[in-house]
């Protein structure tokens, strides 16, 4: 048995979603190789070679691969697929973009967003916005899987895998036009140890930032938002925590002025400790919170800032 993990990185640094996917791959059994697709990504390959338990790292470079265009990733992985029983990618927007495309080319059923490996052919994944978990067994000889990284521990360091270069594929019908990445000194939402999230109760974009930003900075936290706050334009879409946004599982999640709609809970209920601050004592968020403070955020957040010192 051999498993190929497609690495998640930003062009220069390997993301720990890769380490977590390696853990899931290890649970399938057999050898684990990591494929780095990118452009000028030798440093990423070097970092991947240090992950404990990795047999070898494959590095594929090319123009379309720098932006992980689905067609280019597919064309890169397809010729390698014969050597693997399973191909795993983190369930990031990139992984979700190329993995099903690859599965269709291989004529196999993709298995999306797994949270548990039960057996090499059997997996648990959330459905219905996390309101149910299905255990599914695949009859395909080859499996294409995306992994919800918050459900797996990160593989450690200490490996010394060899690095091989493989041919990079192209995306002849797709052109990269540009990107607007959010620049922030705060930790990334998906990887932060503490997340503070604001909801519709904050009332405006100005208020959202005036309340959430200083608190996040004080705690060294990432800022998240409910879908209601995003829909209302108080926070950008990439702040969104929930089934349709980001799924997070930090050590500490602080929900401020968030009622706790089903779809939001699906995105954060695996956090280690959940704190809810809401003036409505009946808000559903309190049903999942470890610690609840029934208070208006307008008084509670300044008090919280003061208590943090």
């Amino acid at each position, binding site marked *: 048995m051999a498993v190929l993990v497609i690495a998640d990185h930003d062009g220069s640094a390997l993301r720990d979603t890769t380490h977590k996917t390696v853990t899931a791959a290890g649970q399938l059994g057999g050898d684990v190789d990591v494929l780095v697709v990118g452009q000028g990504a030798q440093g990423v390959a070097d970092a991947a070679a240090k992950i404990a338990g990795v047999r070898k790292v494959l590095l594929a470079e090319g123009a379309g691969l720098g932006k992980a265009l689905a067609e280019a990733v597919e064309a890169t992985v397809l010729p390698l697929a014969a050597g693997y029983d399973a191909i795993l990618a983190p369930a990031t927007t990139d992984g979700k973009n190329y993995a099903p*495309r690859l*599965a269709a080319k291989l004529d196999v059923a993709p298995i999306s967003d797994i949270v548990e490996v039960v057996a090499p052919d059997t997996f648990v994944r959330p459905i219905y916005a996390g309101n149910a978990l*299905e255990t599914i067994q695949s009859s395909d000889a080859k499996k294409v899987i995306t992994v919800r990284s918050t459900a797996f521990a990160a593989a450690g360091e200490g490996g010394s895998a060899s690095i091989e270069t493989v041919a990079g594929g192209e995306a002849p019908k797709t052109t990269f036009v540009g990107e607007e*990445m959010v620049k922030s000194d705060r930790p990334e939402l998906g990887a932060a140890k503490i997340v503070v999230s604001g909801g519709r109760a904050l009332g405006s974009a100005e208020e959202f930032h005036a309340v959430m930003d200083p608190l996040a900075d004080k705690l060294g936290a990432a800022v998240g938002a409910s*879908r209601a706050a995003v829909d209302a334009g108080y926070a950008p879409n990439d702040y969104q925590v929930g089934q349709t946004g980001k799924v997070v599982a930090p050590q500490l999640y602080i929900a401020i002025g968030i009622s706790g709609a089903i779809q939001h809970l699906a995105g954060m*209920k695996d956090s280690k400790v959940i704190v809810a601050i809401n003036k409505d004592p009946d808000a559903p968020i309190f049903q999942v919170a470890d610690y609840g403070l029934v208070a208006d955020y307008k008084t509670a957040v300044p008090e919280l800032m003061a208590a943090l010192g």
Partner: protein
Amino acid sequence: MKVLVPVKRVIDYNVKARVKADQTGVDLANVKMSMNPFDEIAVEEAVRLKEGKEHHAAGTATEIVVVSIGVTQAQETIRTALAMGADRGILIQSDSDLEPLAVAKVLKAVVEEEKPDLVLMGKQSIDGDNNAVGQMLAALLDWPQATFASKLEVGGGKATVTREIDGGLQTLAAELPAVVTVDLRLNTPRYASLPNIMKAKKKEIAMKAVADYGVDTAPRLKVQKVTEPPKRAAGVKVASAAELVETLKSAGVL
């Protein structure tokens, strides 16, 4: 330009899914069903491409065909799309819930018959949450794909799509024909007006069966069980922000 919009009938967005006691699935008996919310956004965008709303030139889309694979009642879902402004519908009847790979194969056959320039569809259905069919359809057709669209411009033989990706936005240009899957921020779907609902009743829905398309739809996945996610233990209420900080410090999370 002809646009094909696949739509799915799913549990209504506001209904909490409940797992059946025998763990065979989610209980859908007597539950309100609606069009998958992401598909509604796809229908809305197709109609805007036809009407020339927002930044689209009028007549960018000339015909909008809506297709659904599902039970007989999925006709209602198609009617909803027709009332929003789609031109005609195709219902491919199936009593069993097809897996994404099978859906993609049936849709490929529909595309070969209808020859659309653009397939516009939701990024995922809110029941299976697979987020797979659009990508798979593009792969089977060897078409380019642009997923998770928050902005779409069509012109010059290509679709220029702004995509919601981790950490920001990415813009791609895909040569037509292409598959574009849509995300939440693309638009806010309209409510169909009463006159349009009446008009939609006269629009054509072609009735087909999965077998008509002659593709292999055998399941590859066996659902062993469907269970409820573990519940979190009930928490405690604290009286003040100061007590909260103290509690978090003693719990070792601050």
